[in-house]
């Protein structure tokens, strides 16, 4: 291995500069920055109100927003210092993705890092890519963690594992739809062995979850434009397969061999 490292280190790496492109991109970025700023400009007719507006904004920032950012940072620090959360970060490769404050508590959502997956398209003559993933990795991908931090007591009040079925549960009609979609797909019949049996049907956890305020409660919700999906787990001859179905589009989006029983 040392020889390989030496070999890689010895190979000359390309160092190429593109001054025109650099300048063109900079110009583009600065224009974009100005566009983003302009969105916050108030129309000229409202200019008289601007006299008192900055003072009002400063007051709002001072009372609401800065303390909010401070509390969020503090909550994150408390959460990350908790040994169980540290263990979960280490084992499941999760990171904080959303935070909401409510009633002196901070709700922190930790989700696994997105990992590359081969997305397959199953449509008539299109090729199918199979990804062989270990069972442990697949299970890890479907979990997130909700930590609730008590900001007054400065401790982690609770840690809860989030599972897909809790956020986007499947109805019996949806389960039936999954089976129908899979049965119609001829290409699957060529790939999956004839001896397969269904182990279970469960909802697919959305890639990104978020925290949503509903009244006085903080709930976990899928993204706003989420398309519901379901996973059907098959087993056969000592192997396990997973097929993921998009319930809205009524099509198969993924096929995985997920290791041995």
């Amino acid at each position: 291995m040392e020889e390989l490292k030496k070999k890689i280190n010895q190979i000359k790496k390309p160092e190429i500069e593109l001054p025109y492109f650099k300048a063109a991109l900079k110009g583009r970025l600065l224009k974009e920055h100005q566009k983003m700023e302009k969105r916050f400009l108030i129309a000229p007719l409202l200019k008289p109100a601007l006299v008192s507006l900055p003072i009002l904004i400063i007051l709002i920032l001072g009372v609401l927003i800065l303390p909010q950012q401070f509390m969020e940072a503090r909550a994150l620090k408390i959460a990350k210092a908790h040994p169980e959360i540290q263990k979960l970060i280490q084992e499941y490769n999760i990171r904080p993705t959303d935070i909401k404050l409510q009633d002196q508590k901070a709700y922190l959502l930790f989700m696994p890092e997105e990992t590359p997956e081969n997305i397959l398209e199953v449509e008539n003559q299109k090729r199918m890519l199979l990804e062989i993933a270990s069972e442990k990795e697949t299970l890890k991908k479907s979990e997130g963690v909700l930590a609730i931090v008590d900001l007054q007591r400065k401790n982690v009040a609770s840690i809860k594992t989030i599972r897909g079925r809790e956020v986007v549960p499947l109805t019996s009609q949806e389960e039936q739809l999954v089976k129908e979609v899979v049965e119609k797909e001829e290409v699957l019949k060529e790939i999956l062995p004839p001896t397969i049996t269904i182990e279970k049907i469960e909802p697919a956890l959305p890639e990104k979850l978020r925290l949503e305020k509903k009244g006085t409660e903080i709930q976990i919700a899928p993204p706003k434009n989420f398309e519901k999906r379901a996973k059907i787990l098959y087993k056969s001859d000592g192997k396990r397969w997973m097929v993921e179905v998009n319930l809205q589009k009524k099509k198969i989006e993924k096929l995985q061999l997920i290791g041995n029983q």
Partner: protein
Amino acid sequence: MSGEFERDLVKRAKKDPETFGLIYDKYYQPIFGYILRRTANVALAEDLTAQTFLKALKNLWRFRWQNVTISAWLYRIATNEVNSYYRKKKGFKNVSLEEAKNLKSDINVLEEIQKAEEELQKEKDFLLLHKKIAKLKPKYQTVIALRFFEKKKVSEIAQILGKPEGTIKAQIHRALRQLKKLLEENETKN
């Protein structure tokens, strides 16, 4: 840059285009170089670099509380863009493709790309190595590139990718093992 200074710079960059311009000037070459060494394609590296900085600009507001350095944050965005490209591969769609096309409408930029591609094709040893590395999973390509091309320490790579150092060391080891196998297969064929 100290943490305090960086936090202040990012805060100012949100409102002041010139300050954002300073961040861009400082990190453009390292990020472009990293993407180029990941993709071995000048035109593609330009597109992905443009996307990286556009995303950085659009996500500047959330930079602070994730508690990473600007460099690590930009490398992370760049890594995600490159890995996303390798995952989708077949003509990737992205928000800024239009912007990337606009940038290339300048004749100087086009000539520059052509000359740069010619320069790149001279780096035969690197291109051979890159061909093998490109066969690895994106996560292994990432750690190899960051460790050996960008000369990042394990702790820096851990910060860029937001993963524990132990995981990074294990990934580097596995990546090298797979790469060694690919290179040995190549030698056997020759």
